[in-house]
């Protein structure tokens, strides 16, 4: 027997029944609300006719082609735009540096619908509803990925290595192409893979920003399933997309392994202030341009909520609760009702996610191999897309005895499924870092194993769980993909209402849509700031 640690007394183990009791809730939720819908979706897709029909249809390949090329262009553009700010942020010390990083992160966590709305507000009418608007939104959205992932490696690359290349006669440009970029390559690949995944599965941005004919696979799945009633075709497309995702993830994991070399990463090279005048103005220009690009869409959002064809007016805000657009004519979208729906949904989704996530974390930390299975299982929902989750639930729960489509809790459960992985990731690390000897100390004082666990391990959970709750609330408030399938008329959440309002003509409706998007952006930023503060203190 070759063990790193001595064998702990088996009599001190947590009772198996307790671990099973912890795991049963999350495992059941996973099986009923994710695995079974996914199996239903698979069954719909393998129906031979659907596969043949879908693959033979010209639109299918047009959609796949569009999805792929816009994702590639978005990814390349994001990397190209992100490199300069990544370098400046990693290497230089300047005023507002932290604020800039915080700003880019805030933009990254904004709901997709808000991002779509912001670019709709920003761009002139001639440009919005075009593919270029979509790509611009994708670039700004994902800048934080490049800046954080590439910057993290960049700030550890010894500047002396670049100086060494210069002493060997390399020009400024050759230093970058011969030394810096090759060393950054694993980080660049990783960032590119993530941006590609996000843009390939783009849904909310496209639904809000693009013309109705512009469709990614996700949008086409939604259209076929809910607008055309072609469930089989939608299922085939879902699987097609999942296949691409698996291939991309596998490829990026392999290239990263192959290219990862033992980089002699120093502890963070000290950032320095810009020295020469040219350097100073370059840093200032890149820093402020990045800040401008990140803030402009949000500013435009707020500004447009006050603008009407006849001038500035706060009528969109004051009339937020009025659904009557002309005397006697009502519209089925009530912004205030959407707000209350969203808050109620977010509260329930947070409750579900926190309870199930906490139970799962405790079970995963206490159980050995079976725990890892539960861990991987509960991560699956973020591996597939929100659209797939919503679609699966839509077709799995529309027949007796599981006709739950009308149940108020179906949308919160869908949101919880997406939020649980985040709750688990914030809590499991803390649970795993609890010294087992702390529990042993409790048992030497007479606590039985269950009591020792309850008194020593469980209390460690509260703080990370508060962080998890804020994350879950933010996720639920902005969730659009799954909600598109599951929300019923009268139960619209904010993102659904935003998409509807911005899809209508009429300046008041548009302004109301921008007002709702402003509220959602503010709520998300507040929640994420709370998360950041609490995590910084621990």
């Amino acid at each position: 027997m070759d063990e790193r640690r001595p064998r702990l007394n088996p009599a001190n183990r947590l009772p198996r029944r307790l671990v099973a009791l912890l795991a049963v809730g999350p495992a059941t939720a996973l099986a009923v609300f994710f695995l079974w819908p996914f199996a239903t979706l698979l069954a719909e897709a393998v129906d031979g006719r659907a596969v043949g029909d879908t693959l033979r249809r010209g639109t299918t390949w047009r959609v796949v082609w569009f999805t792929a090329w816009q994702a590639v262009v978005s990814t390349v553009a994001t990397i190209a735009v992100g490199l300069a700010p990544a370098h400046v942020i990693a290497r230089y010390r300047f005023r507002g540096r932290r604020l800039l990083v915080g700003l880019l992160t805030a933009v990254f966590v904004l709901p997709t619908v808000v991002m779509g709305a912001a670019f709709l507000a920003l761009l002139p009418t001639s440009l919005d509803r075009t593919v270029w608007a979509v790509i611009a939104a994708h670039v700004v959205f994902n800048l934080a990925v490049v800046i954080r992932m590439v910057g993290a490696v960049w700030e550890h690359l010894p500047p002396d290595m670049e100086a060494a290349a210069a002493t060997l006669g390399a020009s400024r440009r050759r230093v970058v192409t011969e030394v810096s970029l090759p060393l950054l390559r694993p980080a660049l690949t990783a960032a590119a893979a993530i941006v590609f995944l996000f843009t390939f599965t783009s849904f909310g941005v496209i639904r809000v920003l693009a013309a109705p004919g512009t469709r990614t696979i996700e949008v086409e799945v939604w259209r076929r399933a809910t607008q055309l009633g072609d469930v089989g075709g939608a299922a085939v497309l879902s699987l097609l997309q999942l296949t691409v995702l698996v291939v991309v993830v596998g490829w990026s994991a392999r290239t990263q392994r192959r290219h990862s070399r033992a980089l002699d990463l120093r502890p963070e090279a000290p950032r320095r202030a810009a020295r020469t005048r040219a350097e100073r103005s370059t840093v200032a220009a890149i820093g402020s341009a990045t800040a401008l690009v990140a803030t402009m869409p949000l500013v435009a959002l707020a500004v447009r909520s006050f603008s009407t064809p006849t001038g500035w007016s706060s009528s969109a805000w004051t009339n937020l609760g009025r659904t009557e657009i002309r005397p006697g004519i009502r519209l089925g979208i009530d912004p205030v009702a959407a707000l209350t729906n969203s808050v109620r949904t977010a509260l329930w989704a947070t409750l579900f996610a926190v309870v199930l996530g906490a139970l799962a974390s405790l079970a995963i930390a206490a159980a050995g191999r079976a725990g890892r299975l539960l861990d991987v299982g509960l991560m699956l929902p973020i591996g597939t897309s929100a659209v797939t989750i919503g679609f699966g639930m839509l077709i799995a729960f529309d027949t007796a005895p599981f006709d739950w489509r009308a149940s108020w809790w179906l949308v919160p459960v869908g949101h919880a499924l997406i939020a649980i992985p985040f709750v688990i990731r914030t809590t499991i690390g803390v649970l795993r870092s609890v010294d087992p000897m702390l529990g042993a100390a409790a048992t030497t004082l007479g606590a039985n194993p269950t009591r020792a666990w309850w008194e020593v391990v469980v209390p460690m959970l509260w703080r990370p769980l508060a962080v998890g709750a804020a994350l879950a609330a933010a996720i639920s408030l902005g969730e659009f993909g799954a909600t598109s399938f599951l929300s019923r008329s009268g139960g619209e959440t904010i993102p659904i209402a935003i998409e509807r309002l911005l899809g209508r003509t009429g300046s008041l409706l548009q302004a109301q849509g921008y007002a709702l998007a402003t509220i959602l952006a503010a709520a998300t930023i507040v929640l994420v700031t709370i998360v950041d503060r609490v995590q910084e203190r621990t």
Partner: protein
Amino acid sequence: MSRLDVAGVTVVFDGTTVLDDVDISVADGEVVALLGPSGSGKSTLLRVIAGIIAPDAGTVSLDGVDVSALPTHRRGIGMVFQDNQLFPHRSTLDNVAFGLKMAGVGRRERDAAAADWLARVGLDGFGSRPVTELSGGEAKRVALARTLATRPAVVLLDEPLTGLDRELHDRLTVEVSDILRAAGATAILVTHDRDEAAAIADRTVTLGAPGTHR
């Protein structure tokens, strides 16, 4: 206040034999110092006795009864850990009262007893302090009070005085000795300091030197 017998304890991990067929007997109320170079398995032996680590061979008996199969909480063996292992989310008083709470003693009674123990280790009035704000010496005394408050049959102390400054070390050496005598506890004290061993213990056993622990 029990007789402790360790017989033939062997622990192997990571391919290394940490404890090889160790026998130790401690009489009722006796204080034994366990000396030995680092890596000789002193801490591991204490953990085997407390029932935290399961030995690959050998038995631990209290008053002639084999307790090897019992979980830690049923052995009645208290332990002061080298790094104290105070519960960071509880106040100093709640740390000291923890064992009494586990024994089902009511809140008022256990708080009074815990305050009493704090006074005995020279920390009168420290009850409401967060343990994370205690100094090294204070934390050590809280750990000692926490273990002794449950009046365990056997007390195990894992280098209780290591890492303290000279003056505190000398003062606590006397205090620990007095407290253990007053409690009449059967105790094993792990140390690598011969003077400390001589000052506190009735007898010294050296681990890792062949023949001596037999």
